[in-house]
């Protein structure tokens, strides 16, 4: 209703004059946009030029091809992809169950679950890893030495936005009616979740998945201080040995994340879901 009214007000009455006015009266705002564009795009341009225009060779993809050929780079990238995969499975299974259960059975506990889910925001990774090392190193030394331990801690880091994303997704559909209908028709709980809830949550699940991948592909602090060589740790290593390799990989990983968000944007816009960025804060 109010959106319609706003639309009418904006467009109908003094249409030509305001429109011209918007353009003329806001050079300051355009300046802000232009300066921000410069600030945000210049470093990307700088790193692209640095890695693509090699001295004496002109424009070439050589730096990228060379660095991708390195065994350690590919090996650690594959490791990070696997860690991301397991993290997604773990955090989605845990949080989908928890959010769904809270909504259906214990709505009064919803604020408690929400508070706990966003707790990881309040523990900086650099302080978190101190606690992890202090607790798990003496208690479970072989667990903390294994690269797979990261899955459990990354699932913690992923919890806030997994929660937000699923919570928003479940609120948008009427879960209670859907599950009661499905249960009434004789489906079990697992069947209901698998065949009714999950298909209705596609964009929320996709959002949580991509944010998790972004976190895992970018997480340096915990992995490096636990001495586990994941992809970001390897990138830092490469950066110390070669001039072009590190920045090339940095730009590539940023492009991968950007691509994921672009796909997500197309998905959520079509379905009118929540913005992925909003789930992040």
């Amino acid at each position, binding site marked *: 209703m109010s959106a319609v*009214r*706003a639309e009418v*007000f904006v467009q109908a009455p003094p249409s030509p004059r305001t429109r011209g006015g*918007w353009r003329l009266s*806001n050079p300051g*705002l*355009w300046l*802000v*946009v232009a300066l*921000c564009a410069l*600030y*945000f795009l210049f470093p*990307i341009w*700088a790193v692209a030029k640095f890695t693509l225009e090699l001295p004496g060779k002109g424009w070439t993809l050589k730096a990228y091809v060379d660095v991708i050929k390195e065994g350690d780079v590919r090996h650690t990238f594959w490791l990070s992809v696997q860690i991301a995969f397991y993290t997604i499975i773990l955090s989605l299974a*845990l949080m989908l169950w*928890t959010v769904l259960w*809270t909504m259906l*059975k*214990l*709505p009064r*506990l919803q604020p408690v679950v929400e508070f706990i889910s*966003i*707790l*990881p925001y*309040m*523990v*900086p990774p*650099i*302080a978190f890893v*101190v*606690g*992890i*090392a*202090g607790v798990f190193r003496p208690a479970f030394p072989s667990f903390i030495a294994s690269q797979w331990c990261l899955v459990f*801690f990354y699932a913690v880091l992923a*919890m806030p936005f997994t929660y937000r994303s699923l919570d928003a997704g479940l609120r948008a559909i*009427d879960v*209670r009616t859907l599950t009661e209908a499905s249960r009434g028709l004789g489906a079990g709980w697992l069947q209901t979740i698998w065949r009714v809830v999950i298909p209705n949550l596609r964009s929320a699940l996709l959002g949580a998945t991509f944010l998790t991948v*972004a*976190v895992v592909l*970018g997480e*340096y*602090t915990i992995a*490096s*201080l636990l001495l586990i060589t994941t992809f*970001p740790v390897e*990138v830092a290593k490469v*950066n110390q040995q070669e001039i072009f390799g*590190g920045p090339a990989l*940095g*730009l590539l*990983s*940023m492009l991968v994340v*950007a691509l994921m*968000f672009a796909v997500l*944007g197309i998905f959520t816009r079509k379905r009118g879901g929540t913005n992925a*960025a*909003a789930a*992040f*804060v």
Partner: protein
Amino acid sequence: MGPEGCGQLSQSVAIDRPAGAPAPAGRRRRVSFAWLGLLPFFAYVGVFLLWPTLAVFWKGAHDPAGNLTLRTYGQIVTTNQLRQSFWKSTLLSVDSAVLGAVIGLLLAYALVTLRRPKWLRNAVTSFSAVAANMGGLPLAFFFIAAIGVNGMLTRFLVAHKIDLYDRHFIYTNPLRSLTIIYLYFQIPLMVIVMLPAIDGLKTSWREAATNLGASKLQYWTRVGLPVLWPAILGGLVLLFANSFAAYATAYVITGGQTNLASIQIGYFLSGNTIANSEQIGYAIAGWMILVVFVAIMLYQWLRRRTAKWQQ
């Protein structure tokens, strides 16, 4: 309203059903069963988040001999280098939060006001989602290529007789270059926080104010800013926490040479402690969690105040 009412209805049905004699027993069993459903969540959070986090505080609250004391926390304040590290972290966080908030606010306002190219807002929001999330290494590489010693801008400016690495600008004060770099994720974060708040300013309020004879300035001081201030303050606090907690970028850019709280923790973990008591490391981490915790709680509270206007 809808789902809640629904919930109450089916809950009361569930509770009322065993109307006969065993009602209390049936109800009790139902409640304890429902609790069990959250057990995996609580167990997981307990083991992988709360245990390590509380251990930081607990281990920090001991002296090297193993006695329970708060002296180590005090030591952070009294030891010169450690106090300095927190002070520098605070300075960096305040600088980057204030600058990031002001610029982010302006950018968000521009996006809402300039409806001209329709793609502009979508492009900036999508980019913000990527950039706000991009701490760490790529960011460090971007800026080394741009304003590092051999960076593109550095060389360009040197050709025009301006030296970024002169006495004044970057070289003598690494905090200044870190501020510039942190803005790369601070501004987008502020944009993400502020966009819904600015969208919440209803056109009708502006029209009402204009009809009552308010000037543009009066509209902002009497209507716009009073409505927006919880969101702005919230954004500031969030940005502060965000910068205070950052580690990877600062570590890669300065090679661990800057005395920031997060860098000190990194030293401690890799075994290069300044003091030879490991409690110090826990105590620094404890202080840091405390600062960020308070900031985020404040942000959450302010966010709820903002949400009041966005209905």
